[in-house]
């Protein structure tokens, strides 16, 4: 069973009037996990197969009602949830999953009917709609961080009222000094105790230390993958790495997430990953990608001769955590994100990545409604262009296909690649079927 067929299998499984019942049954995920084994050989790698199994198992666990489910926003330090052996659930990743199966529109429409404005981020609208439709596992609590996304805390607060469960916010100051670190660390410690109370468990420092060690392994393994990705041709496609969203948003602190990247590093190290024979253009990709089935990523990575050599999301920006001093080190992790600082920090990071991965150009995928990412994009573009890199700001939407005009978005990408071609003295323009490999 090929990957595309596996997606079709999932889509067919969830299609129809019983979607809610099927999506919310833990048995479904056991069945899907078995089906996944049949598709094992057709996954691009053992690592991606492991990631799919892990995500499915955790989703089944979330629907099992045997363990309290904690909804965590993207970038929340999910190690404290793993440290209590609770079940973290990333609704942002669930939204991307639903969109990849082609079910975004129904949930988006439901959210709009409930009064969520179409101007809002489609991740948040889709989460709201899916929650109202009963497609997501009921949470025992919701926790959201204020850094990097100011929409999530508001949405989570709203949904906490809907589910009638506690909502906790991690208030992250916009500065990274010692006071800020102490302030965030104190909140994390309180939150850890509050989540333990919720689960009627005694908070065990040993459990948290294990999660911190797992998170450090995740970091070390990802660093190894990232070093190996300096190879030309690129051994891993950026679009595949962006599919590991679950690990970044919900997996840090788990043994399995660390193992996925260990496996990926082994695969690259053993030369099992072959890059494109012809790598005409190396691209650094900023922000996320469309997760619905569209033509953009297929065109870039399969038809244009370009490769996403690296993506901003995979950059390891945080220092190692301290198992003996978990909360201050998690606070440092939260506060060290290069996008939660003056724009110069993001610019410097992007320049460093562009040099390290020897890219020809930089594409910023400007997701509709994401103020944090898109807000400074013009200034970012200006600074990067002054430093000599061609930059494309590509307006689009990660989940809502209705916000994408395919012809226009492909023309922009093609025109950008033509700019790169002229810089490299390649012949401009090709037959549209020329670069398939």
């Amino acid at each position, binding site marked *: 069973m090929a990957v595309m067929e596996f997606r079709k299998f999932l889509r067919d499984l969830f299609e129809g009037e019983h979607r809610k019942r099927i999506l919310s049954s833990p048995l479904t995920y056991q069945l899907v996990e078995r089906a996944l084994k049949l598709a094992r050989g057709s996954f691009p790698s053992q690592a991606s197969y492991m990631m799919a199994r892990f995500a499915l198992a955790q989703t089944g666990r979330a629907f099992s009602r045997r363990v309290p489910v904690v909804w965590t926003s993207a970038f929340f330090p999910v190690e404290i949830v793993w440290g209590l052996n609770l079940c973290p659930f990333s609704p942002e990743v669930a939204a991307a999953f639903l969109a990849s199966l082609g079910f975004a529109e129904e949930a988006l429409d439901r959210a709009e009917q409930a009064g969520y404005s179409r101007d809002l981020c489609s991740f948040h609208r889709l989460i709201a709609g899916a929650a109202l439709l009963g497609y997501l596992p009921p949470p025992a609590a919701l926790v959201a961080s204020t850094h990097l996304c100011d929409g999530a805390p508001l949405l989570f607060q709203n949904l906490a009222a809907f589910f009638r469960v506690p909502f906790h916010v991690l208030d992250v100051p916009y500065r990274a000094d010692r006071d800020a670190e102490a302030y965030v660390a104190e909140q994390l410690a309180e939150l850890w105790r509050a989540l333990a109370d919720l689960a009627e468990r005694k908070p065990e420092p040993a459990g948290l230390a294990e999660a911190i060690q797992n998170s450090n392994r995740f970091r070390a393994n990802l660093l190894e993958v990232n070093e190996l990705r300096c190879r030309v041709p690129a051994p891993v496609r950026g679009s595949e790495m962006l599919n590991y969203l679950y690990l970044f948003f919900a997996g840090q602190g788990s043994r399995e997430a660390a193992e996925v990247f260990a496996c990926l590093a082994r695969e690259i190290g053993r030369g099992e990953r072959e890059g494109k024979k012809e790598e005409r253009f190396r691209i650094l990709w900023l922000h996320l990608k469309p997760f619905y089935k569209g033509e953009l990523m297929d065109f870039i990575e399969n038809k244009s001769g370009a490769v996403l050599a690296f993506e901003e999301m995979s950059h390891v920006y945080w220092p190692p955590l301290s198992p003996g001093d978990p909360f201050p080190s998690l606070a440092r992790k939260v506060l060290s994100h290069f996008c939660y600082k003056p724009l110069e920090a993001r610019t410097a990071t992007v320049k460093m990545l562009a040099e390290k991965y020897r890219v020809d150009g930089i594409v910023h995928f400007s997701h509709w409604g994401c103020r944090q990412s898109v807000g400074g994009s*013009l200034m970012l573009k200006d600074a990067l*262009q002054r430093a000599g890199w*061609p930059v494309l700001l590509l*307006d689009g939407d990660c989940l809502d296909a209705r916000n994408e*005009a395919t*012809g*226009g978005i492909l*023309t*922009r990408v*093609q*025109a950008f690649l*033509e*700019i790169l071609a*002229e*810089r490299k003295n390649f*012949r*401009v*323009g*090709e*037959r*549209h079927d020329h670069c398939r490999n």
Partner: protein
Amino acid sequence: MITAGIDVGSLTTEAVLLQDREILAYSIVKTGSRARLAAEQAFEEVLEKAKIKFSDVSFVVATGYGRMGVPFASRQVTEITCHGRGAAFLSPRVRTVIDIGGQDSKVIRLDEQGNVVDFLMNDKCAAGTGRFLEVMAQALELPVTALGEAEREARRAAEISSMCTVFAESEVVSLIAQGVPRAEIIRGLHRAVAARTTALVSRLGLVPEVMMTGGVAKNPGVVSALSEKLGVEIFVPPEPQIVGALGAALLAR
């Protein structure tokens, strides 16, 4: 060597034949509902005008939104690169190209060598495009080509507050009902297009010299409103509609 460029746009399709960097002939036809037929028609017409055969043409490059549907093209190049190349050929000092076509508008930045280094494209809605003016012309019961001339009698510009084509059309209908002179409405519409385009130009940064291409460049009312708004002189080539096809012909090798 004779080369050809075919620009399949949303409203019109243009073909240009080039020999030793001299334009042999060009043609402009309506695109209609079938881009491929329009491309064939434009190509046949231009071959006839130049009195040559298909086999005399060494290379054909297709551009425009329908570029993938031109079976006899050797290659496809985006309209952004082609407009840039065509504009630089016509005037090497041009650094900013404003192309307002039927369904989108683009601003293109060129370097000293005439290469495209940056661009912006607006295709999210019809505001500020040729289609916007076409709809308004229908509401005013005028052919779109007459708008520029009809504006000359205006003493002032009517206020058009909406940029949305649908809402602006309602505004135009209301203004007609209020007895506002047609010329003043047209001037208001031209200023609305200029305001929309200025926003796009400002985002990319205005670097003179400026050339305007595409069908809307044939409307002197829009050109003058845009020139006033941007505070620069805008150069319009003798046939602004063929610049994309010209660029394609230049790239055909």
